[in-house]
């Protein structure tokens, strides 16, 4: 058979298959046609456990069967292992909790499971950045019933507002975690600088002999995570933001341009090491080894993952709390330009109920159980992270340690909000934003900032 014939056959086959497939009836199980906030419950045929109890399924990236004391998620693993018997005991004869350990791709897993009619949890932990994706894909159901619960009125109204879409409550906000700066007091003896100019000046003096003024997530790894991390901390501290409030990407603003110029200076003057662009959390090492003076990051991220530490003076600490108690590390807001409050990204954690959850009553029981004050404290300290959104719980001793006190003061001194604002296609937005800013501060530090920001806007807004 000649090459020509073979090519023709392949081309015809591809074309025929394409046409056939395109004309075929949809094979994806169709979701209900109702937009955004769907009806409360669908076919709650909860699987029964032994003894007439119905099973409540959760998905966490914590694994109750992993007893490794060195595991990355050991705190959450032990928490789930400890609390499963407690929940089952409290709901004996009615509900039995089963946790399905998952990896970090919870959003992808949930969206695809709901779309394909696969197994889904009855209740799942969420991060506020996931909410737009769930809404876009009609993945979750509303949790309006929560408004009638006794604990609801105690929740932070701003957190409730963040969970409310078209007047319907779509998630239960339980904890919030601001982004701030952890710094070594050995490096910054007079406290962390207050203005960008001061940081450049003081940082320049510190960045000698293998040390660096700061470290941060500057890489494009994990599909643009930097957009909600360091990049947003700087942008918002200069009074900037990513959106126009109408769901459009709006990057080309004087505030954003100044913020990017500042980030360029940080890189150009060697205030940070190359590892900030290496991805895979390499940037953390410089701080953990006492080589970088400051680390702008999430409050909860540092509490959970920044361990162990070696201070610049060479003293070892098992975790960040120990270092704060010893006054080796302190917390501060990021720098801010005149007239602006230091900016910070705000993480919000809690629960969502998938649209196709089988045991919605079980989900309600689980959430109500978690919202019992002592259980809430346990969940926040071990699984969720940050501060409680319940006003009364903030006085709990667990949140009155030196670390929490400093974090609370920093949070109050900063202007914190979820980084994505009105943007809805979060995964796409964060990749475009991160690639653009990275390109401007690292790959092409001479490129025209305004022109590149406009190009990025156009790329995202074409999809609106």
């Amino acid at each position, binding site marked *: 058979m000649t*090459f020509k014939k*073979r*090519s023709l056959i*392949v081309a015809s086959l*591809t074309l025929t*298959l*394409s046409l*056939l*497939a*395109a004309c075929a009836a*949809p*094979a*994806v199980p*169709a*979701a*209900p*046609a*109702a*937009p*955004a906030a769907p009806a409360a419950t669908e076919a709650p045929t909860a699987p029964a456990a032994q003894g007439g109890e119905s099973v409540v399924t959760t998905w966490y990236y914590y694994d109750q069967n992993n007893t490794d004391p060195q595991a990355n998620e050991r705190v959450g693993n032990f928490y789930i292992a400890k609390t499963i018997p407690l929940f089952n005991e409290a709901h004996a004869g009615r509900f039995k909790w089963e946790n399905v350990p998952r990896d970090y*791709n919870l*959003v*992808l897993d949930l*969206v*695809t499971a*709901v*779309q394909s009619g696969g197994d889904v949890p009855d209740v799942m932990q969420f991060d506020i950045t996931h909410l737009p*994706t769930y*809404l*876009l*894909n*009609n993945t979750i159901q509303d949790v309006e019933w929560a408004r009638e619960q006794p604990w609801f009125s105690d929740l932070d109204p701003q957190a409730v507002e963040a969970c409310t879409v078209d007047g319907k409550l779509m998630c239960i906000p339980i904890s919030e975690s601001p982004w701030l700066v952890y710094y070594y007091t050995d490096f910054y003896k007079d406290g962390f600088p207050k203005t960008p100019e001061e940081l450049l000046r003081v940082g320049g003096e510190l960045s000698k002999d293998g040390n660096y003024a700061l470290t941060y997530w500057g*890489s*494009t*790894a994990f*599909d643009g995570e930097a957009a909600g991390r360091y990049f947003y901390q700087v942008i918002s501290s200069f009074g900037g933001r990513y959106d126009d409030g109408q769901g459009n990407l709006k990057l080309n603003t004087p505030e954003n341009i100044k913020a990017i110029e500042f980030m360029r200076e940080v890189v150009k003057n060697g205030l940070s*090491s*190359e*590892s900030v*662009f*290496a*991805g*895979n959390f*390499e940037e953390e*090492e*410089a701080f953990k080894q006492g080589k970088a003076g400051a680390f702008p990051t999430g409050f909860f991220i540092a509490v959970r993952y920044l361990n162990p530490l070696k201070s610049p003076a060479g003293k070892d600490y098992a975790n960040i709390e120990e270092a704060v108690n010893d006054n080796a590390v302190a917390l501060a807001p990021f720098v801010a330009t005149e007239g602006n409050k230091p900016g910070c990204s705000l993480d919000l954690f809690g629960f969502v109920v998938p649209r196709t959850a089988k045991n919605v009553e079980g989900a309600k029981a689980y959430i109500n159980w978690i919202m019992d004050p002592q259980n809430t404290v346990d969940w926040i300290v071990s699984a969720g992270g940050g501060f409680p959104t319940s006003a009364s719980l903030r006085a709990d001793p667990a949140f009155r340690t030196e670390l929490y006190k400093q974090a609370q003061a920093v949070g109050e001194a900063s202007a914190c909000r979820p980084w994505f604002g009105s943007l*809805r*296609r979060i*995964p*796409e937005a964060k*990749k475009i934003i991160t*690639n653009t800013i*990275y*390109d401007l501060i*690292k*790959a*092409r530090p001479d490129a025209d900032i305004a022109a590149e920001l406009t190009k990025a806007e156009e*790329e995202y807004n*074409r*999809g609106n």
Partner: protein
Amino acid sequence: MSVASPQRARPGRGRLHFNRTLPFWLLLPGLLIIAAIQLYPALFTVYLSFQRIEPGTGRYIFRGLENFQRLFSTRQFIESIGHTAIFLVGYCVLAMTFAVLIAMLLRQRVKVTAFAITVIFVPWVLSDVIVGVVWRLFVVPQYGLFSPFFANPSLFPPRGISVLTTPPPPTLIPGIYFPPAPALIFLIFASAWKVLPFITLLILAALQTVPNEVLESAAMDGATAGQSFRFITLPLILPVLTVALFNLILGGINGVGMVFSLTGGGPGTATEVLSYLLYSIGFARLDFGLAAALSVVMTVINLTLVLLTLRLSQPQEER
């Protein structure tokens, strides 16, 4: 004395039909399994490439060629085509060249023991992700084993390089992503290292089928080593080289594990090849329609390259 051969019993028509169709029935279970696990997903991908999710309802709606238009208009897609082309050329040339050289060396009366073959095969049996992680550890900026070597300004002027973070130099021709970033070159080396044992053993096996007598008589007739290789060895091992090239092309275009674990597509988008872009669009952005469109485009690219390879590897007289 003639012995009449016993007349063979003639099978009946039904029996004949059974014998003719038996292979089909024996193959049917396998074909059905292949249809279920390969054909259906492939067709579904084509179907999905014409659909887009309706915001808010999660339903797929027919949008014609919109996904393809979106794909071709994104800068990332064009960039990743360039990165893939550079990767593929570098990967195939490096792996084939070294594989042929090593195989030729091994053929020179070197006795390859089972143990040696096992050792040679180690990179091939490792998973892409493991190889990526190990090679990444060599060049991590702060503590990588080879990082000081690459950071040496006298070896890599003017300021040394950091493999994972140094951006690509300015392009020589606008729109052509060349020269590549150090990370892409490193990725090519890591990928070629991993596949080298398999390709080497494939070629070694082919070389061992080349008759020594022919080579010896060519030498007696005054043929140089180069001429022997060009006019005797190469034509004889060409079918195997074609198989090796198939393997490299398909693996090179479709493999994502190594990119994922070694560079994560970075620095910036410097190592974002088509397969990684597909992963990123599908699994990170959850834009399944666009990802399906990219899959279809990649299938066409794969088929084109395979057919081209077949065409070019055919002996001249058969063309």
